[in-house]
């Protein structure tokens, strides 16, 4: 018996994305997602490849790489893959592990039902997307 499941629940509790959930709900989330690890240099998302999952970073660092150029860095609490799932279009960037990356993963088809079940998580995601958009495009208010 070991404590790493509590560890995952504790890590989830510290992330903004899941910050509004109760402890039992966090346990349910921990049961819903799978855990995956990626070594340094491994690609997690690939430009143009369909059927991606929704990833939440628990540990480590990844780069958003477009045509070989690193455009952004993602770390603990950041998430990716959801845009491709929501829009039904493959990723336009690679996501590459810069350091060993520990993620929670949810399959594409399970992602919208998950967000529908947890509107608070959807709202946190919406806030994060709004911030990303503000940083990316400078003129819409």
């Amino acid at each position, binding site marked *: *018996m*070991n*404590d*790493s*499941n*509590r560890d*995952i629940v504790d890590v989830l509790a510290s992330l903004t994305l899941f910050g509004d959930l109760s*402890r*039992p*709900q966090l*346990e*349910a989330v*921990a*049961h*819903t997602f*799978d*855990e*995956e*690890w990626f*070594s340094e240099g*491994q*690609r997690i998302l*690939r430009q*143009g*490849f*369909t*059927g*991606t*999952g929704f990833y939440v970073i628990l540990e480590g660092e990844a780069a958003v790489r477009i045509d070989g150029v690193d455009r952004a860095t993602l770390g603990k609490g950041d998430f990716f893959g959801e845009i491709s799932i929501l829009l039904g279009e*493959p990723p336009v960037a690679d996501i590459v592990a810069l350091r*060993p990356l*520990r993620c929670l*993963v*949810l*399959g*594409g*088809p*399970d992602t919208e039902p998950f967000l529908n079940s947890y509107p608070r998580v959807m709202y946190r995601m919406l806030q994060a997307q709004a911030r990303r958009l503000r940083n990316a495009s400078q003129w819409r208010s």
Partner: protein
Amino acid sequence: MTGSSDRPFPPGDRPFPPGDYPLIVVGSGPGGLQVSYFLTRLGIDHAHISADPGPGGMFRRFPIFQRLLSWTRPYAPYERTTRFYESYDWNSLLAEEPENRSLMPEIMDGVSEFPSRPEMERNLILFAEKTGTAVRYECRWTATRREGDRFVVETSDGEYRARHVIFAVGAAEPWKPSTPGIELVPHYAETGPAQEYAGKRIFIVGKMNSGFELAEGLLPWARQIVLCSPRDAKLSVVTRSLVGIRARYLQPYEDHVLGGGIYILAAAIERIERHADGWRVFTRSTLGGADLTLDVDVVIAATGFGSPLGDLAALGVATFNQGKLPVLTPFWESATMPGIYFAGTISQAMAGLKKHGVPSNSGAVQGARYNARVLAEHIARTHYAWQAPRPRVAAKEVVPYLLSEATRAPELWHQRSYLARVLSFDEQEGVRDEGIWPLAHFVDAPGGEAVAMTIEHTAEGEIRPAVYVRRGGKVEEHVMPGDPLLDFESAEYRKQLRSLLSGLKGMRA
């Protein structure tokens, strides 16, 4: 607990005494037997040890209620012992010699397409005997360390040294979460005969296949059954894949829906306490409902299994999933301790691309057996200078061949978007059949022009061929449409594939 064949394996000199070997295989379940078979065929000397008294691995004891979840069709569209028959036989191990192939249907008694546990065990014993796969039984791996460029595997018989070790030790070690009180109650693995539970109120922690298998087996005996875990039950008929509770175990679900004394709760368990002659379970709803406290006679933790990885984590093998599985490269090698490989059900720890959230069948025999062959070839190629045959494929055969593989190759059908048929394209060499490779390796590997053919299982449960083309250092994915009869060889497919491959070296443009 039903009996298993605890009789010792045929007596005689025990093979592989402690000492130095090029490679060691640990474990004699389907994974260990399969990888050892292929290593032998490739001419790679290795010691093969196992703590068990005979072959079979988990199938010497499990499943508890005695029928498997993997099927074998004695009568199928293809003749037994042919390659394409493998798609209809999820339980036989692979072999090159016809007399060693398709052993499972010979053994089944026709009662069910799912073999019984004893039939599966017999299948594996027969494979070991007929292929002459020698194993040193009752040799228990106790510890591991590094000495220079060797691994030292300590056992109850002494020390083994090798450059490379393949651990095929299964995932049959009972695992429980750290819920307060759960250490007091039995695990699925300790469940007794169904009659022992007559008239009892039973609380099963866990809603995956093992929990439902218990519930289904106890239906004729229990007074009341509760199945509980934080999230909703997932059903394979809903996910349209093998993810979730299999159709065979759905009776308790139907009883729950109809109100037959079976209750399925989505709740976290806060703690379990002794109470009167039984147990009191405190739950907290995950769906915003009331928190329930239940008094029951029996609590069983159907909370799954982990791999008995021993001291490998301390040695430097990174693990995940609460220590249950090792972190692996696309060739099932430890990501942090090169030279240590894994075969059998542990190969599921290499998740692959998991497209559309559909996992591979690496956790089961029908998937792991192909991984074992690919692993043996990888080790042979990488460490023993083995040259794969790489037969030439005539340019005009390329498209029909790839589409035939898409339509009927068992490696592709059992391991969707996980294993691929790879062809290479070169001016001098022409088109070569490179064999079966892990897709996770192909999509990121550098190299010349090449194509990987796979089968994809989409979100809606549709099956589609998917082609990956590497050209100019980039890999592009092309998913082709599905077909209601799963026939991917029509003129339309030939035309599409020809167009995708046009311009590749060695093909007439």
